[in-house]
């Protein structure tokens, strides 16, 4: 198999391997099952967010409001069920949160597809509006007595065990949600006409329009899909933490976008892979959890992530620019 050294995926993979090698050299305990399962557990929410962001980037837009959507759907769902006092199984709770998320995603779609406004500014506006609405009209108090369904879900463990040294490790079934989202989105992007349309409108909205693709319809789908995934990620986050905090999640958006662009998705649209995105997520989760192992204080975390973004996307962009200049 030929290795393409100019691809982001290769670069990110090499950085991850280097990171793990150095971390293991510093602390041999790094290379263990508990570390692996910690990383997997921490990548569930970031991973689901990242898949949503990937779809938006491929379609040629950007969404920064997904964390606010997640916090909104998660908190509203929990508050509704707690105040109604009804006993709903966990999948019912999930469906409700996903529906709220889809609704908020459709609001984004109204501005992006309906009014054709720049996506960054629209979603910055909705980020602030959703969050402001949640904290003003829904509530700003932490809910710690989450519905029984959510607590049941947090107890569903896929794998558990103890290492020889007596360290405990486990992986919740919530991880399966990430796996399903990944498989479903892969199928959507690579095996359906709708997926090809998403790539097409990201590559060139004008050309897509001229070959008869309903650009607006595809955009509506993309923003609704991101909303649905955000609702799912939000309720998983609250279920695993067994607490619904309306101040959670918002602020994560930059590291999620960082993960996706590190994985090679282009902000200009039309290009991006699921493998790259997952590698990007792995790198960002590694950096946020294990930076201290490399002897770098955790206060330097955003400097490292920022540098990774600039180098990881700057080098391929520079190569592309030089190639374009050579081609004339």
């Amino acid at each position, binding site marked *: 198999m030929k290795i393409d050294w100019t691809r982001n995926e290769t670069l990110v993979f090499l950085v991850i391997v280097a990171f793990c090698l150095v971390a293991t050299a510093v602390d041999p305990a790094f290379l263990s099952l508990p570390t692996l399962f910690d990383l997997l557990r921490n990548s569930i929410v970031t991973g689901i967010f990242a898949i949503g962001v990937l779809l938006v980037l491929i379609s040629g837009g*950007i969404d920064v409001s997904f964390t606010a959507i997640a916090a909104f759907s998660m908190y509203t769902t929990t508050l509704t069920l707690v105040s109604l006092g009804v006993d709903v199984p966990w999948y019912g709770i999930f469906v409700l949160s996903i529906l709220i998320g889809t609704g908020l995603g459709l609001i984004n779609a109204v*501005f992006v597809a309906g*009014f*054709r*406004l*720049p996506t*960054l*500014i*629209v979603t*910055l*506006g*909705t*980020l*602030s*509006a*959703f*969050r*402001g*609405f949640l*904290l*003003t009209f829904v509530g*700003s108090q932490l809910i710690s007595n989450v519905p029984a369904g959510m607590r049941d879900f947090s107890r569903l463990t896929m794998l558990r065990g103890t290492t020889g040294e007596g360290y405990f490790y486990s992986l919740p079934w919530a991880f399966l949600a990430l796996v399903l989202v990944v498989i479903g989105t892969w199928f959507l992007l690579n095996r359906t006409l709708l997926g090809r349309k998403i790539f097409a409108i990201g590559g060139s909205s004008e050309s897509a329009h001229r070959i008869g693709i309903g650009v607006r319809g595809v955009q509506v789908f993309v923003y609704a899909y991101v909303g649905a995934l955000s609702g799912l990620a939000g309720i998983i986050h609250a279920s695993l933490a067994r607490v619904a905090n309306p101040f959670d999640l918002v602020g994560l958006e*930059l590291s999620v*976008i*960082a993960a996706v*662009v590190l994985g090679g998705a282009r*902000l*200009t649209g039309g290009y991006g892979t699921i493998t790259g995105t997952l590698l990007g997520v792995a790198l960002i989760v590694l950096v946020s959890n294990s930076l201290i192992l490399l002897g770098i*204080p955790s*206060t*330097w*975390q*955003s*400097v*490292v*992530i*920022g*540098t990774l*973004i*600039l180098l990881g*996307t*700057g*080098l391929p*962009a*520079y190569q*592309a*620019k030089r190639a374009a200049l050579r081609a004339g």
Partner: protein
Amino acid sequence: MDQDMNKPAAQRPARQPGGVQALLSSEIGQLSALALVIFVVMAALDPSRFLTTGNFSSMAFQFPEFAILSLAMMLSMMTGGIDLSVVGVSNLAAVVAALILSALAGPQALGLAAGATIALAIAAALLVGALCGLLNGVIIGVFGLPPILATLGSGLIFTGLAVAITGGSAVLGFPPAFAFLGNGAVFGVPMPLIVFVVIAAVVWLVLERTALGLRIQMLGTNPLAARFAGIDDLAVTVRTYLLSGIFSAAAGLVIMSRANSAKADYGSSYLLLSILICVLGGINPYGGFGRVAGLVLAVLSLQFLSSGLNMLQVSNFAKELIWGGLLLAVMVANGIQFSRKRR
């Protein structure tokens, strides 16, 4: 119209409504009307508190810091880009200045020693701003990264550096004289307002009276055409972001002086606010069009609104909702206007 103007007033046909309509169809006219309406509504809600010298004076101290950030944002938006790192630059510059002030002068310093240190700190902050802006310009111009991505990454780095240098806590202990920049007044005019007016005048001069300004507008209108017209897009991009960085640092100094401290996460709500001000002020987010007068009117409108909301004791969360909703509403209104012009 021109012929009418030359006739004596009595012979001129009654065109008064037409005049108002012409004024209202211009962007500046609409913005003036908006600022006036907000002012009148807020004043009518509670004249005894809104129409006071104290309220006007506090408004004049409040708005310059985010107005300066908006000017920095405006320059990058005029080229068709965006600068998401403005708040990061302003905090990093402020932290550097704060460390110089507290280490070399301290809260007891007076006289010449304090003055020299303050001058050094201000110079250092502006230099930091210039370097940050230069970095942005080079990443965008040389490496060809989209401005959103470049300034997102660099903004993380600047904020991260400010956190790393300070360990996340506030830097305190400046010479008392430094407070003058944020809280003092010259002949009754607040210092922050003077800083804002000077920077606004510089931006106006650059945009309306220099070759760089013309090139910024051409690059923002159509980058490809600008290149074919022989415009050195790299030089324009680097200079634009350089200026944006220096202005962000100036805003950081004003914020720091008003807060009498510097911290890595000050002014985090100003990013959205500065984009909102630019969009409201008629600066086209796709680049090319925008005027300083529009931006100033947008700043005034938002400050009237903000003071009014404070007067009504609206919570910060509700304000967040209002700013976000307003941004969307203005974009929709502008968008409809754009498409109407095209037709």
